[in-house]
């Protein structure tokens, strides 16, 4: 009891000597010093991918120092230099090696683990993109850590919020692992400034783990339109479009008129109206644009999981009882083959 009393007396005395310093401040900054986050940055052909910004935004929310990590062919001159300009990064660890260019987890995971161990980071964060989803659990297992996936909110250094059951329930979870391995939902962490930083670029350790997998080829859907995951406006078509020809004829001009990205429901993708990579929903992409306009989409729970955080939802559907109208801010009951072209025309004139 006496030491406690002595402490509080001392503390009281100290706060009189330094009246401007609040009592809890030293502890808070001590905690921030202990927190150090490694943000895993995704690059493609030397270009940082948008998903990387979400990892950095989340790392900054945690507080403490933030280090970026990037690996691939000649990344020091390209992606790492780009990352160094991002505001809030203290350091960028870069590994120049062609072997990591495709981000294959078999050699990328041991590489990351080595650098995490060397840096003694308390948190490792990546975006919940295809790259992050495939890589981080492997990293977590090698570190003997239970990963926390697809978080939408950081409550504290060890407590995170994530949707489960296709977004029908929100789980708040506390991690007891010493290193926290986390993937973040891109739409929930935004606002990273890509200019104004001047992080130091340093060489990372390279364990040269053998590549067990050979990259053969890729086929990416080419599009001039904004990227679905980050677009401020999204136009989505569903089963109601009836065919690929109709989908393209009706939806593409609307997307052009709005400068929007194109999305599709699972039904539309399964019926071959649109590419798989455009699917919005639990098993596809999560979007949260300013405007989400959908036509011929009924609003199944799996679809709602991917878009219900949009600012404004507008829906056109001929079934007035479709579940989509329960979440839409603006609903129009009518035949989309009449209404969408009319809307497109009027938007063009406006």
């Amino acid at each position, binding site marked *: 009891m006496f030491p406690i009393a002595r402490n509080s007396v001392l503390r009281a005395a100290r706060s009189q000597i330094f009246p401007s310093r609040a009592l809890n401040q030293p502890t808070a900054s001590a905690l921030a010093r202990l927190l150090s986050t490694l943000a895993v940055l995704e690059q493609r052909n030397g270009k940082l991918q948008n998903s990387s910004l979400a990892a950095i935004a989340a790392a900054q929310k945690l507080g403490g120092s933030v280090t970026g990590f990037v690996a691939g062919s000649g990344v020091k001159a390209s992606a790492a230099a780009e990352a160094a300009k991002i505001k809030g990064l203290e350091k960028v660890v870069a590994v120049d090696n062609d072997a990591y260019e495709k981000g294959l987890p*078999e050699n990328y995971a041991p590489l990351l683990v080595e650098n995490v161990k060397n840096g003694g980071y308390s948190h490792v964060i990546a975006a919940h993109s295809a790259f992050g989803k495939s890589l981080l659990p*492997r990293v977590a297992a*090698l570190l003997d850590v239970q990963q926390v996936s697809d978080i939408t909110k950081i409550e504290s250094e060890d407590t995170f919020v994530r949707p489960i059951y296709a977004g*029908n329930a929100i789980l708040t979870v506390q991690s*007891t692992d010493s290193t926290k391995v986390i993937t973040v939902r891109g739409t929930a962490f935004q606002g990273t400034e890509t200019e104004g930083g001047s992080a130091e670029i340093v060489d990372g350790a390279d364990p040269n783990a053998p590549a067990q997998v050979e990259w053969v080829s890729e086929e990416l859907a080419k599009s001039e339109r904004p990227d679905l995951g980050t677009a401020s406006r999204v136009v989505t078509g569903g089963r109601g479009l009836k065919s690929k020809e109709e989908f393209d004829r009706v939806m593409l001009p609307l997307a052009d008129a709005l400068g929007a990205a194109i999305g599709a429901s699972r039904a539309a993708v399964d019926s071959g109206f649109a*590419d798989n990579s455009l699917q919005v929903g639990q098993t596809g992409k999560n979007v949260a644009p300013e405007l989400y306009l959908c036509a011929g989409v009924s609003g199944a729970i799996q679809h709602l999981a991917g878009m219900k955080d949009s600012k404004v939802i507008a829906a056109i559907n001929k079934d007035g009882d479709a579940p989509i109208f329960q979440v839409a801010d603006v*609903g129009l009951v009518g035949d989309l083959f009449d209404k969408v072209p009319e809307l497109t025309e009027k938007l063009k004139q406006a």
Partner: protein
Amino acid sequence: MSTGLRILVPVKRVIDYAIKPRINKTQTGVETAGVKHSLNPFDELSIEEAVRLRERKGLPMKVENILALSAGGPKTGDVLRTAMAMGADRAFHIDVPDSDAGGLEPLTVAKMLQGVVKKENINLVMLGKQAIDGDQGQTGQMLAGLLGWPQVTQASKVDIKDEKGTIEVTHEVDGGVETLKTTLPMVITTDLRLNEPRYASLPNIMKAKKKPLEKKTLADFGVEDQRRLKTLKVTEPPPRQGGGKVEDVDGMISKLKELGAL
């Protein structure tokens, strides 16, 4: 290496995908009692793919056997029977008590599967890309990491090239698909586009009742149910109110302007 495929298909019993889950009163989890459960949809795809490998003509490697496995409470046997009715040869039921917390953590499952792979001399593990309850999408990658095996996540096409086990897998990435080549043993997680799962026919359901289903425990594979994550609470997502309907396209445009979306 022998020329046969010994496939492990881990499956999970989850609340049926069409059911809207309800949060329990104590906010510790989702109400599961009396709710329709079924096989996780992504796991149906992995069983189907394993069975199709067996049925595929001219495949350079023969499927020796398909082992379905699930961990959970007493009702887990149902999904294992379904898996066997679809074509799995045998099943392991890892007895784990039901809990609000939603079953074992992925890392524990991955460690358990690592034990099974070693004991049963498995050379191909096919898992769903995620369970639709926890939505974590980790188990396959964790297992591959623990085993030091190659992994391909979100596979949409699996092709075995030769009797040495060269395998080419096309998988879904952001913006399109990517094709990778590796050799067995490996871990594959399935995506929706991989195949169209079959319905189990009545005769096959009857036959499945005679297939061996062995009860095991975590301890059989040297694993404990250790929890690293603590559920603090489970809540309803913030409700979203529909803003009502408009009469025509002009009404829609003016409402969108009013909301600041245009």
